[in-house]
């Protein structure tokens, strides 16, 4: 609010030099700067201080443990009877405690010597960042304007006075003090990017596992179908099949096993199991269903694993602030979760990949067919339903651990040796708002991506978000710690992404609804059947006709053009245009506002 962060500093700089430099720049008294805090290249020093603090704590705990033992033994009813025995035992314990304290003191001395030796080395005395606090916010704004709003003339000719000891400074608005991770400040941007790439790669490996599992399940499903009695669920049943007698149907199926589903689908699963013809058909169906459930379960598990892994790996990335850490988590987790929950199905939608990977002969189609809705559509719904539980399970587990610990502290306070331990038992976990934002955005994006074709995703998403809200609200009040003052970046990003979700929704709607077989009429079907589809029957068989013709549709020249030449999608194109135009206008106007404000402030400062 009142502070700036100055980096790229000369090696031997102190507080006084900085105060003089900025007071001279502002042409004011040095009193306008109320505080200068320097961050050194002292990662090792901080680590040693952490170790030293841990040693001190262990010493305090040793003393308290001994005190507790003395008190409990002396207060015991048997003390009078076994006084000598107890006193001898306590004396032994005391000697043991003193020996341990002596040992800790030696370790402490060593740590202090190390800290002292580090303090004498020049490398560890190098200043990395200086946080300068002005007494008034206008001075901060002025300095930021001087350093960051330079014209080309300023940059080329008159930037000498901005340098400190011939070094060009980098000045930014300072982050909130509570979010700075001091031990990470020595890591340069390049080092952090390298680490981030490595962690992203590791998380991406999980995504590949997910993709491999989905493809494997689909491959097994296809193989399973092929190994059966040449059954093809897409074969259109003959128009007069239902009017045949049972014997006629059996004879027809024995002659044409590819129509087995027409026969078996008439029975319920129990009857299918008892029927010799349908037994294998039922078995294959059950196996397919299991594979679909398995794929959904894998996606949910990978989502959870990605979240957990990223939470662990983000510490390795050495962010300078908790804000940066949260931003990094939010972006990657949202994109990875979205790809895992929705993107994989879009990839999976196109069997070209499956065909090239496993060299199996399956039809490839870029559209959303009845097959797609029957298999992948079901998986998406299952994933979204599973996500209702999956997204809350971590919070619920944390709450269970927290309430159990709290209960222990209320029922058995004597188990906690120090007041600090007792206090720690009633402090809840951190509130990870970046994880929550990424979770919510993933739900919204996934729902809006497929909702045109699968409207059931709306109520599922609604229940998911509603429950998420209620639970998180409860945890806010009852469990989470009050978070530090984070900045607005993640919140602004979420606001920015929501119109993007709407655009994506409209684009997907255009693609799904432009399937000209979706809105079909009997005359069109008969016309199409005349044009070569032998299986196309009358209006009743439109579903089968739709699935088979579209499934066999290959990447033909003009396919895209044919799909886009559909009057049904014209309103959607108009809506998309309006949404994009409004969105862009809002962004443009906000930039225009910033520009005019800057011009206005420049004129005021010029005056």
């Amino acid at each position, binding site marked *: 609010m009142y502070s700036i962060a100055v980096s790229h500093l000369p090696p031997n700089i102190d507080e006084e030099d900085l105060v003089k430099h900025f007071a001279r720049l502002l042409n004011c008294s040095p009193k306008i700067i109320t505080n200068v805090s320097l961050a050194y290249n002292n990662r090792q020093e901080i680590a040693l201080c952490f170790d*030293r603090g841990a040693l001190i704590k262990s010493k305090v705990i040793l003393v308290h443990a001994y005190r507790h033992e003395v008190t409990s033994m002396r207060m015991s009813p048997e003390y009078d009877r076994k006084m000598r025995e107890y006193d001898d035992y306590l004396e032994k314990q005391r000697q043991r405690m003193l020996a341990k304290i002596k040992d800790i003191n030696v370790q402490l001395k060593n740590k202090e010597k190390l800290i002292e030796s580090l303090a004498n080395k020049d490398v560890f005395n190098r200043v990395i960042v200086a946080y300068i606090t002005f007494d008034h916010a206008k001075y901060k704004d002025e300095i930021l304007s001087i350093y960051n709003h330079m014209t080309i003339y300023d940059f080329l000719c008159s930037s000498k006075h901005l340098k400190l000891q011939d070094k060009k400074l980098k000045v930014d608005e300072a982050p909130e003090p509570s979010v700075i991770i001091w031990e990470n400040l020595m890591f340069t941007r390049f080092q952090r990017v390298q680490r981030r790439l490595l962690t992203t790669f590791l998380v991406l490996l999980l995504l590949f596992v997910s993709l491999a599992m989905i493809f494997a399940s689909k491959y097994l499903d296809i193989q399973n179908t092929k190994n059966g009695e040449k059954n093809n669920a897409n074969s259109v049943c003959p128009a007069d099949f239902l009017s045949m007698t049972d014997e006629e149907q059996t004879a027809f199926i024995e002659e044409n096993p590819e129509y087995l589903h027409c026969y078996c689908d008439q029975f319920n699963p129990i009857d299918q199991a008892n029927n010799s013809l349908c037994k294998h058909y039922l078995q294959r169906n059950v196996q397919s269903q299991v594979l679909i459930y398995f794929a959904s379960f894998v996606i949910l598990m990978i989502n959870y694993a990605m979240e957990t892994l990223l939470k662990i790996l983000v510490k390795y990335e050495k962010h300078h602030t908790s804000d940066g850490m949260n931003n990094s988590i939010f972006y990657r987790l949202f994109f990875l979760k979205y790809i895992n929950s929705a993107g994989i199905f879009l990839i999976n939608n196109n069997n070209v990949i499956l065909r090239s990977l496993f060299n199996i002969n399956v039809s490839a189609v870029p559209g959303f067919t009845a097959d797609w809705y029957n298999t992948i559509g079901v998986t998406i719904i299952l994933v979204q339903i599973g996500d209702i539980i999956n997204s809350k399970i971590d919070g619920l587990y944390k709450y269970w651990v927290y309430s159990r610990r709290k209960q222990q502290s209320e029922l058995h306070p004597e188990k906690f040796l120090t007041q600090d331990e007792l206090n720690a038992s009633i402090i809840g976990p951190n509130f990870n708002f970046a994880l929550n934002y990424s979770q919510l955005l993933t739900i919204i994006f996934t729902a809006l991506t497929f909702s045109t074709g699968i409207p059931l995703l709306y109520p599922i998403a609604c229940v998911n978000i509603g429950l998420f809200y209620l639970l998180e609200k409860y945890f806010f009040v009852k469990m989470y710690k009050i978070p530090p003052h984070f900045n607005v970046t993640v919140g602004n990003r*979420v606001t920015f992404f929501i119109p993007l979700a709407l655009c994506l929704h409209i684009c997907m709607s255009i693609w799904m609804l432009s399937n000209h077989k979706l809105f079909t009429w009997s005359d069109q079907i008969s016309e199409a059947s005349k044009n070569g589809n032998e299986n196309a029957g009358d209006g009743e068989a439109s579903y089968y006709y739709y699935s088979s013709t579209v499934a066999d549709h290959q990447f033909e020249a003009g396919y895209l053009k044919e799909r886009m030449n559909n009057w049904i999608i014209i309103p959607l194109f108009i809506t998309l245009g309006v949404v994009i135009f409004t969105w862009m206008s809002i962004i443009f106007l906000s930039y225009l506002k910033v520009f005019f404000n800057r011009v206005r402030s420049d004129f005021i400062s010029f005056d």
Partner: protein
Amino acid sequence: LIEFIVSYSFFSSLQMFNFCCLCFRTGRLSAFQGHDNPRFSQRNINTAAAGTTGKATKAGAPPLIVHQPTVPDATRYLVTYTRAMQRNLIKGLATYNILQNPKYKEAFGITWKFAADHDKVRSVRKLKVRANDLVTLIVLFYDYYLFSLLVESVESSGRG
């Protein structure tokens, strides 16, 4: 129409979530009581209820995600840092002294007084641990001594 109603309802859920985030970011009760800004609570309730989106403006247009700065915008150009500190207007940590950061203070095992008197990590080694040891041991043996006296007096009174 159904699509619109349902999507509107879950965007509203998101709004409610953001509102909740906001309340707890800015302090549990201050957001509801309008501790810093009398218009604050009403404005955010309106935001949650209306389900509108947009950027925060000085005119008070309700934003989708509100982040209250540590010192309100209107006052930060009127109040100096020194005065803001005195009036306790700055929420959270107001200093860039690493030793006063509760996380580091706790981990380094230092006292508030020590943190206020020093500003460099290497000063931590100046903290006299041995003196602390002595105090701890004195307290320990004093306790032990007092306890012995107490037990003896109880025993003697019992005998008496």
